[in-house]
């Protein structure tokens, strides 16, 4: 019952997008029907036909035997000279009736000695076939016509040399097998039985094949309606299980993303609150107090100002990153001279470098013109070079090199700073990640810089790599395609 319902359920709910014809269930049934039932039918028909051939052959050899036998007896009894032999005559009459045919016996002068039609005895047979049978050496001839077959068998003397006459046996060919004949009926019955059996088996097999997919659809829907914490569990066939694995992998990914989102939100609120807390503390300590010296006011207000700047920076960065999260439709692609871009950035950052006594070197191997979003690229390099300066040693160096091949351009930012520990290298591009929390606060920064950088690089379909030893410095290499590769829209 269960299977029947399931299968009806499958058939009945075949609808929607691609229509019934595209259903796996239907296709399987169709294919199996073609593969099983058609051959069955063909075999049945062939069998019935080969039966007719077989009957034909059997009849031929039987009649041939009879002719040989009669020829023998005719020779033995001298029938050609004296045909008044009841037994042999009767035997030939019976034989001709059984096969619905006619036996004629002629002697060496072509005279008809016996005719089972009882009509032409005494007359002369001048058919060419009979004449030949008396003249040629072949003992037996067979002639096949549409409705009849004819066997002409020589009657030879005891030594087998002289031809004394011939026996001519003409008989009806077996009829075409009709639909109502026993053999047809039996064949049809048998075929129908097997066809019925095959149909049942096909329906069950097809339902079994299609059922796991139905279960999968059902489970997915349940999953969507429920919570995404559960894992998908559907078994059935290998293909369905592959799908299940992929779905689970996708769910994992989604869960991770969800987790990171939650983390991000919590981080954001934390980061946004921190400057406000500081400001609150500073302000509160001023409020409701009498006789505070002006220098103290100035100091506190200065600190509050810094915190406000900080908050601004954080919010700007957040906005940037949120913008970068949106789809690539926001890219303003244009031909940009990377050399110029880098020079501008480095000029802008010179004051900061000077402050820390850091030397800046720009090495350009060629003129690079690329299709990029200028603003975003600017963000990328500014961030990298600024980091290189900030995390550098006093009197250190920052080296920026630009190169290109026929597909990409490469920007290498090397510094002689504090470097990045090995374990941290895989996390530095994560949002809000900071290698050393304490020091970052001192140098400023929101922890979003490299995340923004990586996003922007990815939007150009490029990539960014970091290397270098802790304590000695870091090297960042950015690779961007020269020609912008747009996203393919589905």
């Amino acid at each position: 019952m269960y299977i029947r319902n399931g299968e009806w359920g499958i058939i009945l709910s075949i609808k929607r997008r691609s229509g019934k014809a595209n259903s796996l269930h239907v296709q399987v049934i169709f294919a199996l029907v073609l593969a099983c039932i058609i051959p069955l039918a063909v075999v049945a028909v062939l069998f019935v036909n080969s039966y007719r051939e077989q009957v034909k052959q059997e009849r031929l050899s039987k009649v041939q035997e009879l002719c040989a036998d009669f020829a023998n007896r005719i020779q033995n009894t001298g029938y050609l000279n004296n045909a008044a032999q009841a037994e042999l005559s009767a035997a030939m009459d019976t034989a001709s009736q059984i096969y619905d045919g006619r036996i004629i016996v002629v002697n060496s002068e072509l005279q008809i000695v016996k005719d089972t039609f009882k009509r032409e005895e005494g007359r002369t047979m001048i058919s060419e076939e009979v004449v030949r049978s008396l003249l040629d050496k072949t003992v037996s001839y067979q002639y096949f016509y549409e409705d009849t077959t004819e066997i002409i068998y020589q009657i030879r003397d005891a030594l087998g040399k002289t031809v004394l006459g011939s026996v001519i046996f003409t008989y009806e060919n077996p009829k075409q097998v009709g639909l109502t004949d026993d053999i047809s009926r039996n064949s049809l019955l048998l075929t129908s039985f097997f066809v019925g059996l095959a149909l049942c088996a096909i329906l069950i097999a097809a339902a079994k094949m299609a059922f796991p997919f139905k279960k999968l659809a059902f489970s997915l829907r349940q999953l969507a309606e429920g919570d995404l914490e559960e894992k998908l569990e559907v078994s059935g066939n290998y293909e369905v299980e592959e799908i299940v694995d992929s779905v689970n992998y996708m769910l994992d990914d989604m869960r991770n993303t969800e987790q990171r989102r939650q983390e991000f939100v919590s981080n954001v609120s934390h980061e946004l609150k921190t400057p406000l807390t500081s400001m609150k503390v500073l302000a509160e300590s001023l409020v409701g107090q009498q006789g505070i010296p002006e220098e103290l006011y100035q100091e506190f207000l200065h600190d509050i100002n810094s915190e406000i700047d900080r908050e601004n920076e954080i919010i700007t960065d957040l906005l940037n990153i949120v913008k970068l999260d949106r789809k690539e439709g926001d890219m303003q692609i244009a031909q940009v001279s990377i050399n110029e871009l880098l020079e501008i950035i480095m000029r802008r950052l010179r004051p900061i470098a000077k402050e820390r006594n850091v030397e800046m070197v720009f090495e350009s191997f060629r003129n690079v013109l690329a299709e990029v979003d200028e603003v975003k690229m600017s963000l990328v390099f500014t961030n990298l070079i600024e980091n290189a300066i900030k995390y550098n040693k006093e009197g250190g160096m920052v080296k920026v090199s630009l190169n290109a091949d026929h597909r990409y351009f490469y920007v290498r930012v090397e510094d002689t700073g504090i470097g990045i520990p090995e374990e941290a290298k895989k996390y530095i591009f994560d949002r809000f990640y900071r290698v050393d929390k304490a020091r970052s606060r001192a140098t400023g920064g929101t922890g979003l810089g490299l995340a923004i950088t990586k996003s922007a690089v990815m939007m150009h379909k490029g990539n960014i790599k970091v290397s270098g030893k802790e304590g000695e410095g870091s090297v960042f290499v950015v690779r961007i395609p020269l020609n912008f590769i747009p996203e393919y829209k589905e």
Partner: protein
Amino acid sequence: MQKGRQKNSIGYVWSRIFLLPLLMLLLLLFACAEEAPPVRELITVELPEGSTKLYYLNEERTKVISENYEISRGTVEEQVAELLTELEAVLWTDAEKAVLTDKNPIYEYKIDSAGLLSLRFSSDYSASSLITEVLRRAAIVKTLCQLDKVTAVEFFIGTQPLLTSSGKPVGVLTAEDFIDTTGENSEFYQEAKVSVYFANLEGDALLESNLKITYDGSLSTERLILQQLMDGPIMDDRQAVIPEGTVLNKVTIRDGICYVDFNEKFMEKRKEISAEAAIYSVVNSLTELSNVYRVQFLINGSTRKTYYNLDFSSTFERNLEIVEGEQ
């Protein structure tokens, strides 16, 4: 809405899956099946009016062939002479004729008032091969009997009647004495004279019809008779008896009883015909044959108990009372 849609999908799905193969299955079966066995045809030969044929032998001397021949007008003797000259030229080679003292195989002929033509071969004529002689005789007889005034031919060698190899005289020969019924495509035809009985227009009595049928000789006389009965009469004053669609499965004669096997359709008697007329039409027609005294009916191989109000399980004898105007 759901229900209606479901109904549609079932029908659509089933028809798409199953109709096609089922159709193919049925088609295959039907293509190789035949409901009724092929009906034997009588080959009737149209005799071309007024053309005479000259019969002679093929090169291998294995068969008798013919060609058209324009015979000149004249007396029958003149025509016979003309034909004989032609036949002699064509049936014997010069070499064969050279060994004869007379150079011509046939040296004399005579035709009597009854139309019997006597042909004499020269006394030193000796037959070459038996078969060739027989075929030559056939050619001569078939050619000469075309003339109206010639009814039969008798052969002599010198003054002695021609004998067969077993010593019996060949006797008087007509064209009907030579038959060629084996094989399929032949111009050979035979004439059969049969008497059959059809029903009168009221359907309660039988009328005798004497038929002359020209055919290829490959059917037995009893089958010929039944075929004529099934074909129906040509004349307007009588009607067919055997129901349409009746098929003769088999007819055999054994010990004076003729067993006639029809298919089921025979049991559906024509409405206009009485049961007696239906039965005795067949019985009287068949008992016209000298070797048939009684008739046994079978339907698809087995006997039936009754045919309408008549006992159908035993044999029938000839019934002359049902024949109209019987003397």
